[in-house]
């Protein structure tokens, strides 16, 4: 097996012996340097998947491998060094008394020298636009600011895999885009796999690949273009398609022949341009 990937092999999970299965025979692979989006209705099992990836939970059936190493209680410290995670509710993620301490905390576990830590704290707070809040107490921040600090903590550690579980839900539109761009830039500089669990459909269109969860099962796996071409079926499972897909769909109904499923504004504009010049 390839060394730099995460693999779920026939994983089933439930929270208690007498409660229903929350994940049912789930198998997939996250490749090295990939940007993977996981989408699905509330309760479909996305956060459970995230928690299984760094050993916060363990499956009753099946196995999970991180960089070739099986995730079991004995390996979790090693696994957690490689898998950085930001959750949707940042309140439970703070341990330090100041923003700065908090960002430092994750790095201490990695045994980084002090000079490197100081530099990384600056860089990562800068990247999320929170440099002015270094000495603030984390619980005195607004919801979106807490999310930014939680993201900075993961950036500072710079793990091989980064999992964002609805980590930007409380950010303003530009803030959300900027943070995604920061991570993308990082990915172009070094080896990094990114998993975003999100309801932001426009963000999903930028992923390399999408996994759609439904009721604890992998419902579909494919490129954003493949996934968003299944409009009606997505709506049936509580999801939706992005604005561009909806508009394209209506344009087809209005009698305009589009040559392919457009994913973003530019592609749809190009379709219009072709139609416009060939009429």
């Amino acid at each position, binding site marked *: 097996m390839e060394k730099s990937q995460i693999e779920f092999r026939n994983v089933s999970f439930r929270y208690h012996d007498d409660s229903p299965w929350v994940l049912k025979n789930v198998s997939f692979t996250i490749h090295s340097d990939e940007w993977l989006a996981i989408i699905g209705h509330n309760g479909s099992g996305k956060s459970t998947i995230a928690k299984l990836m760094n050993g916060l939970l363990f499956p009753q059936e099946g196995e999970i491998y991180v960089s070739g190493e099986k995730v079991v209680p004995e390996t979790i410290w090693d696994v957690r060094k490689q898998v950085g995670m930001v959750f949707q509710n940042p309140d439970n993620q703070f341990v330090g008394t100041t923003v700065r301490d908090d960002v430092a905390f994750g790095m201490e576990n990695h045994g980084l020298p002090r000079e490197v830590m100081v530099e990384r704290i600056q860089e990562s707070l800068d990247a999320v636009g929170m440099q002015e809040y270094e000495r603030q107490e984390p619980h005195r921040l607004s*919801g979106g600011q807490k999310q930014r600090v939680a993201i900075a903590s993961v950036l500072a550690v710079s793990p091989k895999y980064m999992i964002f579980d609805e980590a930007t839900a409380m950010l303003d539109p530009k803030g959300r885009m900027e943070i995604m761009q920061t991570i993308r830039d990082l990915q172009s500089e070094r080896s990094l796999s990114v998993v975003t669990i999100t309801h932001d459909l426009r963000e999903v269109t930028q992923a390399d690949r999408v996994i759609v969860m439904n009721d604890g099962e992998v419902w579909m796996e494919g490129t954003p273009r493949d996934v968003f071409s299944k409009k009606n079926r997505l709506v049936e499972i509580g999801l939706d398609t992005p604005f561009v897909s909806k508009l394209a769909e209506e344009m087809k109904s209005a009698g305009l022949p589009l040559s392919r499923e457009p994913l973003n504004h530019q592609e749809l504009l190009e379709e219009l341009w072709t139609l416009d010049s060939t009429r």
Partner: protein
Amino acid sequence: MDIRFDKVSYVYQPNSPFEHRALNNLSFSIESGSFVAIIGHTGSGKSTLLQHLNGLVQPTDGEVTIGPYQLKAGVKNKQLRELREKVGVVFQYPEHQLFEETVAKDIAFGPENFGVDQEEVQARVKDAAKATQLDNSLLDRSPFDLSGGQMRRVAISGVLAMNPEVLVLDEPTAGLDPSGQREIMEMFNRLHEEKQLTTILVTHSMEDALSYADHILILNHGEVYREGPPLDIFKQKEALEDVQLDVPEVIEFLSKVKEQHGVEIPYEGQTIAELAKELAEMVRGGRDHE
């Protein structure tokens, strides 16, 4: 109820090294019965502003008037209880505040606490559950057995059971899946109209601000940066970008159509299907290029 902020400032941890002026000399008013969206970058003061509306915090300077109630710097308000009955606030991730054994008890908590009699409480629980489309069969279940979207509905029902006249919503759809988001916003919109509420929505979705609000207020560093009707506000792309915001995607797309095709299709609230027809007309030559 009419709401007015008159030169309101709010300072966190005054006279400490962490002193932070979250609202700065803020003045604006909201007409009774309107649906106002408050937008602004993270940390711009939105949640702090909302906390003034039911007296969770008191202005450091200035005065807030909500119908007959007043919150004034330095003056203790003796009617806070009454104010909190009239102004219902749905905080961020409200389901984190659920704590009762059953859904029904959680919804009943507010009115019981305010001394409403049992019969009336039970009627309100049923009404509130109906308004949020929570099935009656769920009332005896533990709220913790429910899905995220259902838990949020329970929390919202608890606020509605107080029969508020003003409904204050702090990012009420964050964390919900797309159909959950749509359902919850449609529900607020319906309640707003049926119960003639004054609704104040903090949101990061420019789409929701455009679809539901009749007035938009943009906060920046604790000050009013712009206010006006959605269609006017969202014409100001650059001004929005300067404060970390954006225009709704439909408007962004139409401005690109204009740039690249030289054809202006003004946005006036058309549905996607209507826009598709206009675009089809454009490419079929129904509209002349400029």
